[in-house]
């Protein structure tokens, strides 16, 4: 690279960092104060883009910027006051489910309002041109004027936010609430007002970030998910709740990507941010500029004692399994196919719940274990040419091995940091599956993973799935009530006391990872043979999110919850997508209603004995 080229790539990185910083700063503020993992933050960004394109037809680009940001802020105000405010007292992470529903609703709203085609916005008037850099005999490169504007806007917003947080009373309250929400409340600060204002500011920043992006990128319907994962990474790398950290992290990630491209390693950009996140978290467990989080108290942290299942629940479950076993007498068709999926996902959700509920270990990348199981089955069967039965039996061990490695790192972190490290690992595995053509078939995946003759019929495969999943879930539950399970819950509720009474908390949690990985791997291996093919989506972010949604829908505090959650979610997707055009919005709406009506999850209907 020539000198001018290095300079241009450096400025490219700075320009990209700016809008990334805006989204991440909002997300970080919201999380810091309200503890909401706002999944819809990327959707706010997307709304900002669409609104800016729309407004700029009427009032021109520059006026459209504040208008779009204000529009998104207004939407954020409505979402917080009408929706999120009602569920702050619900179990942790339930807000994540609500914001996931918002994401679905906003996506279909944008499709309905602005149509399916990408909308390329206008260039910024007055900044259409580019500064050219002369090289020897020819052009060495050019930098758009608008990019320089972006480069300057990032630090400006950072300075403004810093002043707001450090030189105003409101900022002091926000910082106090970020550090210790309960004490702030106890000192008489009106939390409702504080939460609303922070959420609105976060939405405003996301909307502005989106609006600023339209001269560089068309408004499109896929941007929400792509932005939210980037923003999460930036927030975590920078340190949750730290605005300067978010700026630093945005800068670091954008620069590394720009130079990967400049030096000819463009393929590495697929996973670079996740590698950076993994390294940062391993070296600095609370991010670059983050601080050790205060132990969460209050309603979110209160957990009921896990009682043994009630007689009613035991009978319900036994009758259910019996009915499922008899079902093939009545139907040999699609019902079995759908139930096979539901059973697989029930096991997947139960394994995630095993970590999140009794273990208190959040995982945003649980699909990694499901996917490793599925890929291992495919690879053993197609590449190693093992018999199908053997491939199916060995594959979960590969998933357990994956959990053994990832778990070792993850149990050294806590809370959302640990969850994000699982996400980073999942994305690294995903990109390996995506790019390793010879072994995994690349983006197309592996095709032709079919069960052996005696299991080929739908009925036979259904029985196999029912037997394996019921057995695996039963074992998971048995484990929860075993001494190991008690030790696991002790480590969750009070790590210090557990350690004092001689429990090796990390070793217990590490084992929990391996058990959960093994169970998810069984689900994955069965999944591969039920579909006949396996592709990178099986271990993508979407699958991990689906797992979280199932667990939260079912209720994290009940043991049988994940099963009901998995059944409802899978059935809902299947039925809604068949009958309704805007099925994502419909699913989002139903999830919202459930969140409101049953904040403890569907499982609370089948409550375990007190």
């Amino acid at each position: 690279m020539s000198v001018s080229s290095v300079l241009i790539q450096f400025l490219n990185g700075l320009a990209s960092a700016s809008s990334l910083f805006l989204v991440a700063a909002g997300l970080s503020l919201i999380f810091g104060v309200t503890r909401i993992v706002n999944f819809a933050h990327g959707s706010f960004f997307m709304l900002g883009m669409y609104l800016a394109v729309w407004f700029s037809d009427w009032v021109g680009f520059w006026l459209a910027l504040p208008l779009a940001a204000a529009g998104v802020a207004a939407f954020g105000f409505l979402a917080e006051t009408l929706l999120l405010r009602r569920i702050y007292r619900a179990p942790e992470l339930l807000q994540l489910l609500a914001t996931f529903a918002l994401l679905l609703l906003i996506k279909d709203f944008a499709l309905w309002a602005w149509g399916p085609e990408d909308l390329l916005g206008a260039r910024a008037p007055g900044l259409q041109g580019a500064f050219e850099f002369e090289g020897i005999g020819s052009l060495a490169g050019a930098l758009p004027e608008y990019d320089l504007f972006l480069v300057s806007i990032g630090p400006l917003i950072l300075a403004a936010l810093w002043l707001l947080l450090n030189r105003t009373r409101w900022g002091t309250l926000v910082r106090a609430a970020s550090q210790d929400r309960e004490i702030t409340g106890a000192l008489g600060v009106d939390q409702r007002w504080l939460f609303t204002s922070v959420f609105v500011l976060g939405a405003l920043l996301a909307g502005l970030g989106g609006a600023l992006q339209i001269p560089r990128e068309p408004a499109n319907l896929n941007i929400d998910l792509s932005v939210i994962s980037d923003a999460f990474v930036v927030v975590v790398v920078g340190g949750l709740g730290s605005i300067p950290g978010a700026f630093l992290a945005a800068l670091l990630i954008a620069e590394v990507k720009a130079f990967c491209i400049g030096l000819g390693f463009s393929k590495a950009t697929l996973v670079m941010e996740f590698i950076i996140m993994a390294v940062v978290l391993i070296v600095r467990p609370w991010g670059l500029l983050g601080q050790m989080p205060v132990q969460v108290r209050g309603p979110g942290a209160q957990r009921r004692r896990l009682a043994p299942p009630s007689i009613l629940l035991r009978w319900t479950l036994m009758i259910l399994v019996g009915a499922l076993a008899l079902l093939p007498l009545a139907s040999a068709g699609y019902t079995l196919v759908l139930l096979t999926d539901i059973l697989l996902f029930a096991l997947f959700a139960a394994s995630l719940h095993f970590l999140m509920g009794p273990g208190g270990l959040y995982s945003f990348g649980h699909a990694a274990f499901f996917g490793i199981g599925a890929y291992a089955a495919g690879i053993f069967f197609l590449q190693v040419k093992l018999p199908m039965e053997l491939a199916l039996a060995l594959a979960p061990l590969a998933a357990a091995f994956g959990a053994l490695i990832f778990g070792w790192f993850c149990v050294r972190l806590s809370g959302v940091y640990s969850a994000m490290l699982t996400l980073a690992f999942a994305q690294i595995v995903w990109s390996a599956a995506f790019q390793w053509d010879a072994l995994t078939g690349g983006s197309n995946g592996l095709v032709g993973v079919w069960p052996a003759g005696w299991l080929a019929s739908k009925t036979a495969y259904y029985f196999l799935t029912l037997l394996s999943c019921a057995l695996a879930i039963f074992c998971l539950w048995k484990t929860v009530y075993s001494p190991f399970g008690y030790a696991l819950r002790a480590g969750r509720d009070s790590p210090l006391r557990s350690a004092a009474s001689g429990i090796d908390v990390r070793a217990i949690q590490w084992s929990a990872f391996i058990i959960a990985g093994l169970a998810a791997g069984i689900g994955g291996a069965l999944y591969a043979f039920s579909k006949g093919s396996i592709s990178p989506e099986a271990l993508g972010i979407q699958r991990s999110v689906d797992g979280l949604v199932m667990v939260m829908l079912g209720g994290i505090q009940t043991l049988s919850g994940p099963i009901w959650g998995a059944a409802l979610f899978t059935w809902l997707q299947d039925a809604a997508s068949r009958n309704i055009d805007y099925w994502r919005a419909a699913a989002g709406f139903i999830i919202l209603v459930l969140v409101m009506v049953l904040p403890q999850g569907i499982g609370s209907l089948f409550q375990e004995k007190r």
Partner: protein
Amino acid sequence: MKLRQILAFAALLLVSIGSEAQTIKIGELNSYKVFPAFLEPYKKGWELALEEINRAGGVNGRKLEVVSRDDGGNPGDAVRVAEELISRENVAVLMGTFASHVGLAVSNLAAQRKVVFIAAEPLTDKIVWENGNRYTFRLRPSTYMQTAMLIPEAAKLKKKRWAIVYPNYEYGQSATASFKKLLKQAQPDVEFIAEQAPALGKIDAGAVVQALVEAKPDAIFSSLFAADLQKFVREGNTRGLFTNTVVFNLLAGEPEYLDTLKDETPEGWWVTGYPWKEIATPEHKKFRDAYQKRWNDYPRQGSVVGYAALYAIANAVKRAASTETEKLVEAFKGLAMPTPFGPIVWRSIDHQSTMGAYVGQLSKRGGEGVMVNWRFADGAQFLPPDSEVRALRKE
């Protein structure tokens, strides 16, 4: 008298059987929510064909019925949806899918369940070659074919230093591999000096354009599309990448992608696409008029695909005089039929249709992008020799 009564009765019986005859059910599945820009026109295309076919009395005296589903955009869900269509809806044929990996998964299921599957949209070469099977047929010209269609113009330019930019997944990778191989054959002294492979949908356009400017290529081959293409074009225009560099871009002339570029449309790019306004063949005019009358909108590439895919099934059922799978497979092999793009044949060697595409250059006209200097490239002429195909299909 008696004979006449019997004849009348028999005739009545036949008529009543005819009118009570069941519809022919076609299972259609596609990623409507993931790729709406391409698939809404596609849906309008097959809906138009369905109405036309049924207005003309259906096929073999039976009306067609399409059971359409959203496949969720991922192989796992798509396979479940296809199973539902097969076992609950009892469809005679499957058609649809968009992304390659979804198409491959459904194609594999079709072979397992022995159901005919018309892969309408997927472009991957594998679906008819490496992973080809008896029950899968593909309509659109593949990645290989569309790449090959650009080679004559690319070789004519005698540009020596080429740079390549492609989305980092199978479509982009195989387009790149085919382009390099074919251009090297046509022009042995060619050099490929730079390659950029951004992640699909996440191109960092400024950095990619700068890296290409620095490499100083004479020409660029790109297989970017959708949002990636728009970002690349805008950055390239602003940063002067295209002033002295010729660009070849697969698919960029398709209205789905071209229309979003508007006044950014780069002049002189060579592309494959669909100049719907200007194609004046009678079969295309008929299609375009009917489409515009029905939907009050102009046809896109997807419209033609949906329209032709459903007609293909109708033609095959007619030829087979049956909806039995094995007979349908035989009927599809070598089936010749008209489409809005002219006559096509479904090759029996690899089940690929010979549908072509239009090759031309981009230009701006009144703030809109159009294709100029275009010609029709017949798909039949851009396929590898049969021996190569047989080797790929391992037959």
